[in-house]
């Protein structure tokens, strides 16, 4: 079975029309006609991840995020970059193939990245009926909520904004480069990654100011990988339902950061 045949089968089983204009969900490295020995699903095709996939005997990496450090995997400016050369050479030498699976895993119902995030938060039963990204839970403090999430999701570099003693009972959740906009009707906003300031809406400043006025508000920044990696395990499980010829493993790219202890 070739990598291209795996992708063809994904297209056949996804249940939605394929968007041929997606520049994301395409091959990034290697020959699509390479015979697949095994598949690794992951959050991001870092060099370290590709090396570990190869060591596990998996030569086809299905990644959610880019390989060459930009959304479009633009390589035209990278020809003389030493790390680009190293990564490309490593993949060529080891006949590794990388394909990105981003847009369609989000747009198929259900969005498996979302499924993975809600599962790893442990919030499957906390979803409100009104809106997919809204959750309610028994009143707790922002500090206790953050500690629970830190433990459940095993985050090293979690970042929290707001008063740890603030009483909270509702949250709006985003994944990846998205933290929902803080509004008066929700206590906590949670997501992967956002600009700290100067973005379309600055949650960080808003939460700080809301806390100043004694409002029970918080922001929990999980990290992009922490928020989206769990769904790539769901992706592996889903692939196994229609790709049975080769082994399929979910391999964590992992949280990129550590954080010094204050």
């Amino acid at each position, binding site marked *: 079975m070739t990598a291209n045949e795996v992708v063809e089968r994904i297209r056949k089983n996804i249940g939605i029309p394929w968007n041929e204009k997606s520049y994301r969900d395409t091959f990034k490295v290697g020959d699509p006609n390479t015979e697949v020995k095994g598949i690794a699903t992951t959050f991001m095709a870092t060099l370290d991840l590709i090396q570990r996939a190869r060591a596990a005997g998996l030569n086809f990496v299905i990644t959610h995020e880019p390989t060459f450090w930009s959304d479009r995997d633009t390589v035209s400016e990278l020809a003389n970059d030493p790390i680009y050369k190293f990564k490309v050479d490593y993949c060529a030498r080891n006949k590794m193939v990388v394909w990105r699976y981003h847009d369609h895993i989000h747009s198929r119902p259900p969005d498996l990245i979302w499924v993975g995030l809600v599962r790893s938060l442990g919030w499957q039963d906390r979803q409100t009926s009104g809106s997919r990204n809204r959750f309610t839970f028994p009143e707790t403090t922002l500090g206790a909520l953050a500690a629970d999430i830190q433990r459940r999701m095993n985050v090293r570099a979690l970042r929290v904004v707001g008063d740890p003693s603030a009483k909270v009972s509702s949250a709006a959740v985003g994944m990846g480069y998205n933290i929902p906009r803080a509004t008066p009707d929700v206590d906590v906003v949670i997501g992967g990654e956002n600009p700290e300031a100067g973005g379309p809406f600055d949650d960080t400043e808003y939460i700080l100011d809301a806390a100043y006025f004694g409002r029970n508000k918080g922001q929990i920044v999980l990290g992009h990988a922490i928020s989206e990696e769990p769904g790539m395990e769901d992706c592996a499980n889903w692939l196994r339902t229609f790709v049975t010829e080769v082994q399929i493993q979910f391999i964590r790219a992992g949280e990129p*950061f550590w954080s010094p202890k204050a």
Partner: protein
Amino acid sequence: MLFALTPPASRSYHWCVMELSRRRFAQVAGTALAGGRLAGQQTPITAQQVIDRVGNAGSPDGIKAGDAGATVTGIAVTAMATMDVLARAAREKANLLITLEPVFFGAGDAPLAGDPVCAAKREFIRHNGMVIWRFSDYWRARKPDPFAAGLARTLAWTPYRTGDDPFRYEVPELTIGALSDVLLKRLNARAGIRVVGDPRTQVRRITLLPGSTPLSAMLKALPECDVVIAGETREWESVEYAQDTVASGQKKGLIMVGRVLSEEPGMNLCAEWLKTLVPEVPVRWIPAGDAYWRPAV
């Protein structure tokens, strides 16, 4: 520390304004010295007069709240005009607040209709007769880069600068772990610092990328140094590049200290510069601090 006042080419108009302003400042300062001190009072100066003296780069710079004609009692300078910063400024009788980042929660800086937090912030500003002036593009365009120079000074690295490049330093060798602790302490950080790389890696050549920087800056910086200290970069761009650099066997790393923490020393330099330009009123730097904390494990 004084700066060579090299104007950005596209802003020659403002450069002229600034030069004129500096000459006018000499006259004003002279007058104040001659009469003001003996009489125990300074010549009043309005917010608009301060702004005219500095020069105004246009959008996004500009007054975001308050009356341009208000008499200035004191100036506070910050990277992010949070309520905490505004309250400290008000306590210290500084009613002109100069901020690098937005005051009303976003790049557009438009007040949010019907939002209680925004309404309370606006009311605080009105009640205390404050004027909020966003001062971003102009200060960012200044040469040498005041954010890099300010960050280096806060870290006591100015003597280690590579030539006259304010972004590059060669410091006595230390580990990435020790370097992270230095940053934690000198920047008064809490949980805002995040590190890619082995804490035991020895580093010496450091490049500073304060603020929010694109991949292109990282592609240029990291191959030529041991560790980049950035404000914020994106996880699927510069962070992955740093991860791959480490995985390729290079003894390197990336430390992100947070956008605001990385920019704050540059606003301290801004406050010092304003002291020379507006001697009529006290000018102080009020850092917003590290917004982030993390639960104890």
